[in-house]
């Protein structure tokens, strides 16, 4: 099956071509949905086969390259279009195709009746194609192909309902914002790639990473490369300072938010950092930057999430916050924990988004949680699955989120320090709080919607079955990563599975003193207690005494407004970057530079030629005799010159 891995990109591409070219003609939603889902479903089976096959191989043979064709050959630069099938890429591929398949199936129900049904499935398949190239590529160029491809699909899908309003603008503006912000990050990534080629004379993963581990290269070079790569990651994975696009990306249909802006694309940055772990590990200063940015993003987004009222906005900030966790893990050297969290997060966050989609579907496109309430009895399946995902993200012991989050917090404490752990634990507490606020306001309490116009109903089976499967995964997904304290001699399965990928990087990292099991269990108990009390508090406030929340928000009006307006980051960017660029472009680049200088130059050359030829054309009279006179004069001059020079 490893040799068939190219089918996992080829099939979604085929699905994209069929639905994209003929979808308008096919019209039948069942056929379009079947093509879209089946291509991804078969890809998942192939990845699963490759995964099982790889599991059967001895550890040192688990990294296989599948060469497809020679892509670019320029002088010494040889780029092969090849896929690297190893532990990391298989893990990511399983998530992408597995969760992707479920979301495709869900979309058949969710997008039912939409006039762009075929377009939606074409874009989704194109996205899977690009994402699979991103995670499977065996060099930075194929990775970059996927990287840009998912960015394009993200743009297309955010602006999918291009004729709809979104907040103060249109969905197209949100799409453009996502694209432009991503471009800034991509520019950093590109510079990082150039530097890698200059330093290591190759872009192939294996060659670069072996050379990085053995060549004597200055730490500053590593630092610069790592910094540029991390800038790329902040763009794609919505970290400070480039996180602003992700909340606006909620303009797209909800399955898109689940697939692209929660489960897969936004984790591309984490994957890339994790893939280049040896480069990051060789630059300790940048590792700290990664960890601090991750931590700041995590707590900042969590605080914003506390007060938002749009169900998808809350989940969007929650995603930003969880991505911050992943970077915190990568930054403290716990690369396998970050990938573990990518996986569990993909399960429960995709579930949360799909559940939110189900609620929005049942509530006739209402997204304000203040206008929900008491939906539990109308949507039992959605409620139950949503509740499980909420427990998982809150870090309730026994569910997937607990294991990955705990692994990260413990690594943050062991390799980063107490402050890292503390802020991480506070973030976990805030997460539990805002998630239960969301659940309480949506499913419990008084029904605050208009009964005459809104008739809440459960979604069809096509939508609830993926929810149930994801709920199952959210529960059991964590058991592949049981902490060493509890699992004994088998150790942490996912850590052991990914260990060969990170071995060179971990060998380079400094190890901090050992910590006792007692410490680990104590910290775990503390963070769990914090999360549980936050849950209790949230339930108490929003289920029973909603006026408390109002009182608090009135008391701290300034802070509340600061959070409600997302720390005014958008406004600051607007004033500090967007406006100056727009004004500068209009006032100087357009009105002066373009009109006066560029146009002036072009028109100047033209008028110079016109004036010059106006003088010269008078010579051409058309009368033979005047030509003859000039000819004679020329001959006379030549003769004179010959005679004089004798």
């Amino acid at each position: 099956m490893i040799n068939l891995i190219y089918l996992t990109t080829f099939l979604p591409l085929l699905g994209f071509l069929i639905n994209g070219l003929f979808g308008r003609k096919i019209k039948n939603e069942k056929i379009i949905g079947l093509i879209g889902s089946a291509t991804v479903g078969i890809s998942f089976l192939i990845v699963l086969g490759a995964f099982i096959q790889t599991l059967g191989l001895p550890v040192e043979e688990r990294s296989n390259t599948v060469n497809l064709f020679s892509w670019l050959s320029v002088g010494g630069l040889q780029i092969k279009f090849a896929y690297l099938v190893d532990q990391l890429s298989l893990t990511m591929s399983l998530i992408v195709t597995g969760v992707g398949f479920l979301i495709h199936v869900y979309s058949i129900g969710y997008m039912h009746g939409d006039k762009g049904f075929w377009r939606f499935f074409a874009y989704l398949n194109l996205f899977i194609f690009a994402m699979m190239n991103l995670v499977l590529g065996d060099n930075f160029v194929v990775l970059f192909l996927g990287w840009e491809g998912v960015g394009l699909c993200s743009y297309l899908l955010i602006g999918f309902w291009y004729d709809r309003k979104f907040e103060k603008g249109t969905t197209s503006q949100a799409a453009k914002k996502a694209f432009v912000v991503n471009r800034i990050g991509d520019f950093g990534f590109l510079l990082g790639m150039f530097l890698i080629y200059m330093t290591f004379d190759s872009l192939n993963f294996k060659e670069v990473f072996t050379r990085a581990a053995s060549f004597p290269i200055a730490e500053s070079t590593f630092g610069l490369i790592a910094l540029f790569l991390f800038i790329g990651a902040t763009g794609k994975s919505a970290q400070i300072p480039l996180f602003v696009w992700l909340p606006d990306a909620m303009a797209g249909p909800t399955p898109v938010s689940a697939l692209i802006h929660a489960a897969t694309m936004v984790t591309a940055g984490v994957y890339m950092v994790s893939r280049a772990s040896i480069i990051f590990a060789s630059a300790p200063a940048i590792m700290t930057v990664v960890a601090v940015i991750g931590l700041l993003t995590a707590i900042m987004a969590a605080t914003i999430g506390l007060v938002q009222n749009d169900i998808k906005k809350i989940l969007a900030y929650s995603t930003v916050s969880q991505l911050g966790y992943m970077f915190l893990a990568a930054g403290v050297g716990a690369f396998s924990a970050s990938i573990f969290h990518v996986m569990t997060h993909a399960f429960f966050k995709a579930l949360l988004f799909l559940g939110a989609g189900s609620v929005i579907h049942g509530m006739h496109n209402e997204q304000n949680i203040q206008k929900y309430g008491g939906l539990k009895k109308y949507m039992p399946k959605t409620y139950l699955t949503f509740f499980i995902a909420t427990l998982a993200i809150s870090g309730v012991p026994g569910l997937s989120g607990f294991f990955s989050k705990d692994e990260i917090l413990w690594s943050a404490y062991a390799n980063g320090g107490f402050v890292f752990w503390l802020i991480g634990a506070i973030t976990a507490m805030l997460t539990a709080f805002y998630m239960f606020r969301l659940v309480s306001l949506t499913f419990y309490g008084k029904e605050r919607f208009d009964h005459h116009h809104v008739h809440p109903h459960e979604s069809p089976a096509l939508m609830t079955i993926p929810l149930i499967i994801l709920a199952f995964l959210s529960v059991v997904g964590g058991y592949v990563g049981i902490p060493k304290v509890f699992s004994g001699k088998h150790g942490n399965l996912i850590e052991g599975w990914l260990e060969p990928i990170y071995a060179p990087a971990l060998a380079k990292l400094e190890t901090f003193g050992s910590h006792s099991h007692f410490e680990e269990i104590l910290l775990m108990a503390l963070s769990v207690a914090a999360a549980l009390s936050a849950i209790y508090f949230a339930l108490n406030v929003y289920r029973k005494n909603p006026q408390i929340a109002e009182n608090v928000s009135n008391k701290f009006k300034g802070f509340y407004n600061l959070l409600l307006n997302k720390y005014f980051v958008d406004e600051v960017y607007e004033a500090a970057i967007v406006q100056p660029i727009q004004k500068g472009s209009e006032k100087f680049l357009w009105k002066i530079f373009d009109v006066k200088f560029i146009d002036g130059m072009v028109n100047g050359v033209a008028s110079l030629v016109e004036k010059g030829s106006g003088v010269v054309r008078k010579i051409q009279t058309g009368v033979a005799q005047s030509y003859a006179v000039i000819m004679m004069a020329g001959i006379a001059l030549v003769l004179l010159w010959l005679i004089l020079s004798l």
Partner: protein
Amino acid sequence: MSSIPMEYYLILSAFMFCVGVAGVLIRRNAIVVFMCIELMLNSANLTLVTFSSYLGNSIGQVFVFFVMTVAAAEAAVGLAIIIAIFRNKKTVNIDEINIFKW
């Protein structure tokens, strides 16, 4: 014959050539211009014959026959063109014929 110096012939030929050139440049009637061209050709012939005689080399005289042949052919073609132009433009004044421009 040998008493007349070579310079006399050459000066005469140069004078004839200059008359021809002046005629070509300033006369308006195409026929006259044409005749002036013949004058220039014949002055060249005179020079050739002169040098042939003084140097005792007959090649110059052979050239003269070639020039006369070419001149005859040119006269035939040139007169035909002039007639054609006259039929079109009802004039043979070459300052009125300015078709050499775009």
